[in-house]
């Protein structure tokens, strides 16, 4: 069954169009990366899905209207909006008490088991914890909820590499299964590349790319081309070109792999490189773009 169903989702702030008619269909059991430049509408899209902001157009999340039924929806949906939103005065045990009190699907034992793997003290206040520990605490609270949709908006912003790695590891190993859906936005695309099942690029309030990671692997190819073969490679219509290590690196969409192999070494591009290519073509052409 579908988790999110949106048709012509729009949102404007005065004359600024934040969401420009988005169609969205999300099945359960997916991990979707929502990637976009600053101000592209990622947070706005998530806010409408979470019932934090009103919207125009059709939107159903788990068959509910998020804006009208936010409190009921939050029994099945949870989100980490930002690492810094846990109230600073709260003690860890108070957070557990409170969650247990208000959330019918919160499993305190599970949260405590997650916390036991960290160095977080139950009596500490949130303001006494380091940024990484706050993120760990929030993740422990959220993962102890038996929810169907988890939304993470820049969950690892400002954390060091160790915490970021642990964050995604526990999310994949201890939380994710085929009945749950996760939507994550991040600028650190390289660390979610192997986590995602679906990829979505959003720019200026529109979805400019929407594919599964299998499609991604099948569609896009990056070729390292020696200078003498650059002309031949360019004839195959790359969508993006950049320079690196004395070679040209060309990105192709739906190109013939055999032809590509003839001009250079073929590999799967990183999401970051595809992002630059797609956004670059979409917006002002950046250096190295040839059409």
């Amino acid at each position, binding site marked *: 069954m579908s988790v999110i169903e949106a048709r012509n989702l729009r949102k404007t702030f005065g004359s600024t169009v934040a969401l420009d008619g988005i169609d969205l269909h999300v099945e359960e059991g997916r991990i979707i990366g929502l990637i976009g430049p600053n101000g592209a509408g990622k947070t706005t899209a998530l*806010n409408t899905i*979470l019932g*934090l*902001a*009103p919207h125009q157009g059709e939107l159903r999340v788990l068959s509910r209207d998020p*804006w009208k039924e*936010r*409190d*009921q*929806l*939050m*029994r099945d949906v*949870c*989100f*980490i*909006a*930002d690492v*810094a*939103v*846990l*109230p*600073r*005065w*709260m*003690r860890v045990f*108070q957070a557990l*008490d*409170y*969650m247990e*009190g*208000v*959330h*019918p699907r919160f499993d305190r034992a599970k949260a405590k088991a997650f916390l036991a793997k960290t160095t977080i003290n139950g009596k500490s206040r949130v303001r006494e914890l380091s940024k990484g520990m706050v993120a760990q605490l929030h993740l422990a609270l959220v993962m102890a909820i038996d929810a169907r949709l988890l939304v993470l908006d820049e969950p690892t912003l400002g954390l060091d590499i160790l915490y970021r790695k642990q964050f995604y590891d526990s999310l994949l190993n201890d939380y994710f299964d085929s009945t749950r859906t996760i939507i994550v936005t991040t600028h650190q695309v390289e660390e979610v590349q192997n986590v995602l099942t679906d990829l979505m690029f959003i720019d200026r309030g529109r979805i400019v790319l929407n594919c599964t990671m299998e499609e991604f692997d099948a569609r896009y190819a990056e070729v390292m081309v020696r200078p003498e073969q650059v002309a031949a490679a360019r004839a195959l219509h790359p969508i993006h070109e950049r320079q690196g290590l004395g070679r040209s690196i060309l990105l192709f969409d739906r190109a013939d792999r055999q032809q590509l192999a003839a001009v250079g070494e073929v590999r799967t591009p990183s999401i970051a490189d595809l992002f630059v290519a797609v956004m670059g073509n979409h917006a002002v052409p950046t250096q190295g773009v040839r059409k």
Partner: protein
Amino acid sequence: MNTQSNGISGSFESQPITAAVVRTTRPLYWSLRRELWENRFIYIAPLAAAGLFLLAFLISLIHLPARIRSASPLNLEQYREVISRPYDTVAGLMMLACMLVSVFYCLDALYGERRDRSILFWKSLPVSDATTVLAKVIVPFVIVPLVTTAIGVATQFVMALVSSVVLLASGLSVATLWASLSLPRMSLLLLYHILTAHTYWPAPIYCWMLLVSCSVRRAPFLWAILPPLAVAGAEKLLFHTSYVGDLLLGRFFGSAPTQASGADYIFPTNPMAHITPAEYMSSPGLWIGLLISAGFVLVAVRLRRYREPI
């Protein structure tokens, strides 16, 4: 609820009802717990004030036996005057504490959670805006008056106990002290006065502050007091009258029809005070005020849906 004795059919019917009650009251209960965790000044500030006063009172007890001897024990009213002033001071202190705590609480209640961004955490949980705002309304209308009254009464009892010990040690009568104080009646009067004059009569002011704390992006204190002041000033300038100003001051500083105010002012917790709850309950001013308060609260509930961190 009497679910067990209802038999099988009864318990089948009442189960979903009980579940529904639990579903609505549990989030409210925990929202209240949250308010008390977050705003510990609700009890710490009155406790500190009472504690400081108690300290001063204990020091002043050195002079108590002398003062008692100089007063005539036969004239109960005069005796009471000598004895009861500190008790009235505690009561007055707690009335002031009740108002100040409620004002500071209401001005921050729906503002603080946006300033520290924690509103995103609260909104990620299955608690409705109505429940959250209701919990924040219960604090000034139930918790603060009860807490300040309890602290005031407890302080008075400690004062009376220690005074008794001092009087006994100096060989004076304790019975007259307790008889003239009549602490139980003073306690009830304090509760009555705090509830009527400092809680429900100024209700529109507290609810206005809650609404402002939900509305503005900055300086809720200024937004709460400047517009009413401006209206009062404009009225003075244009019509040379001061209805608005009098109305607001009267609301806040308790011109509530709680006592029959005779020619002589009598302190509200004086055991001789004559209270008129019927008059209070039937005064249109009270109900108009509560109606306006309810309106402010409803707007605040609607607004919180749109609120995000600032």
